[in-house]
């Protein structure tokens, strides 16, 4: 992964006046707008942008916070109590971003596939279904659970077995509980050196609410996760470019991935 943060996507574009206009298509009165499968964000004609769709499989030990992370990214209520996800659930997240080289705005459509560990073990069709035509895999570990971090290597080899074309990204969840962290900066640095995989961090807790005290503030919620969404966009878009032969494949040993 020869992508350093901000080299492909303009990092703070969503804060710029132009970015805010695009952001308005996924917000309504500061609430996140939700789209059914047969809908998509509507842009005014002068802002026309292509949509780049990606299927992303979310993998990780039971209880690391896969469902909570997806809910946070989607602007939904983060569940307060843990229970194992039954079967597969998929979630669509739209995210406008600007490409650094061409200056072109794009709407990224991330389609997250989340499934419970028990379902994965109990039913044979679940893992193949999640991997089928996936573009990327997120490997989650929890900052508060050392074993979930130690398990990453075996998990990565187990899940990617037989197919190498996925974009692989590691996400450390529950970073909000850094007081109780079981995984140190040094551990992370070593991991990145050994595996050459990007590592992102997530605080999967509900953000501020609007004046009614109930509805989540969509704009604030997006600001919290913008770095993760940009990170995903960056790596997936870059991989596409490599696959299409537009940019050269990364040379082993010359890369340095930065942490966001």
């Amino acid at each position, binding site marked *: 992964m020869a992508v350093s943060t901000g080299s492909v996507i303009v990092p703070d574009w969503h804060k710029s006046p132009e970015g805010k206009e695009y952001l308005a298509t996924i917000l309504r009165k500061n609430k996140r707008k939700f*789209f059914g*499968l*047969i809908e998509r964000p509507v842009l005014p004609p002068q802002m026309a942008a292509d949509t780049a769709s990606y299927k992303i499989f979310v993998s990780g030990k039971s209880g690391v916070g896969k469902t909570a992370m997806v809910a946070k990214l989607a602007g939904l209520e983060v569940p307060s109590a843990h229970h194992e996800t039954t079967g597969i659930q998929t979630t669509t997240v739209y995210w406008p971003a600007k490409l650094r080289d061409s200056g072109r705005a794009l709407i990224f459509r991330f389609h997250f596939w989340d499934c419970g560990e028990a379902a994965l073990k*109990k039913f044979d069709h679940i893992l193949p279904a999640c991997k089928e035509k996936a573009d990327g895999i997120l490997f989650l570990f929890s900052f508060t659970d050392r074993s979930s971090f130690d398990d990453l290597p075996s998990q990565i080899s187990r899940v990617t077995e037989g197919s190498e074309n996925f974009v692989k990204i590691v996400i450390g969840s529950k970073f909000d509980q850094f007081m109780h962290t079981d995984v140190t900066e040094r551990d992370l640095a070593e991991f990145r050196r050994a595996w050459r995989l990007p590592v992102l961090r997530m605080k999967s807790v509900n953000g501020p609410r609007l004046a009614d005290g109930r509805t989540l503030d969509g704009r604030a919620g997006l600001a919290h996760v913008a770095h993760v969404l940009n990170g995903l966009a960056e790596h997936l878009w870059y991989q596409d470019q490599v696959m299409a032969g537009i940019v050269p494949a990364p040379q082993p040993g010359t890369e340095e991935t930065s942490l966001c």
Partner: protein
Amino acid sequence: MGEEGGSVTLLCLTASSGVPLFCRSLGAPSKHQLPFPVIGSLNGVHMFGANLDVLLTAACTTNTHVVWRVFHNSITLIVLSSEEGASDFALGRLLDNAFSAMVLILGLEELVNIRNIERLKKDLRACYKLIDSFLAPLERSGDLTQCVECVPVPHGAALQECLEAFAGAAESRFGCLVAGGRLALATEPWWQLAPQELLLLSWLVGSLPPHAARDYPIYLPHGSPTVPHRLLTCQLLPGLEACLICGPSPALHTVETELVPRFWKPLLEPLQACVSPQPHSLPHGTTLPPGVLAFLLIHREQRSSQSSVQPPGSGGEGLSPRCRARALRHFYALVAARYFPWEGSPAPPQEPFQAGFPHRARHCYVVSATHKAYAIHAPQHQLFLLLAPHVPTFALRPLAARTLQRLTGDTAL
């Protein structure tokens, strides 16, 4: 339920050892966790009876109603309700629904042959959302009537045709559209599922957090309690889901990325009309006679229902929608348990009044200070009405007959 300060608590224990599996509670937050000795005593008194060959089914204190039931000699459910007007009938239905919800999500096998109690406790958490919706049914009534709630659909024929084609392309016979947790349309085989399954499936879809699509293993409590099927749901629009029950194929990815756009995208506008906010469940253009505060119409053969606690024209008269819903539920529970014998319902306790007559009640009414209520048992339908207190009692019967006629469009009544 909030306003009256009543609370409902559901306890689940293993029948053999009395180990608590979960406790769900709504209403008074201070009672959220029942102390262990109380749970032990509640289970103990039931077990004590069982050892003496006495089946303890229900008990009443001045403010609390308790009902016990053991399922398959494996799971004991106990419900405590301090709601005003709680009845054995309604609480019995609650227990039955709660157990069926557990079967739906976990399968009967896991509940009958408990191997690992800690594992089971963890797995049962997946049922909490659905079970909680039975504890606080708010403005709904399907849990009580066991008749799935339906919403009228504009452009029904075009959507029905599309649904059949969509299910066919997914190699499934079972397909439906669920709008806000109520059934909008279904294929014919879907209607052949057991009434309780119809109900549980639409409540399940309504109770899950929103997702673009799901591949959810389910065990049909009556049709297939031990062999799982796949429930596929695709969120066409927020609040509107297309559901399929399938075997091993097709893959969710195919349904979501190929079939949904192919079949449903051209019908965006009629679909949007299905989710437009309408607090009343009336076909377009239907009006009800003045004075009707709420209605519940049951289609007896199809085991489906329509209801509304704010029909057009009822305005802000008297009771709040929440109170109307509660009053209508109590009236239904009273009438269904005592006066209208219902096919397949647990044998209702016979009123001495009824046992003495060779015929059965067809109409029934109640007059109270805040409202009047009237019920009709017709060959094809049952209608339960809540009316404003100013409606003269002698006018209830013709008014109810006229309402039934308008709702069913049946002029022969």
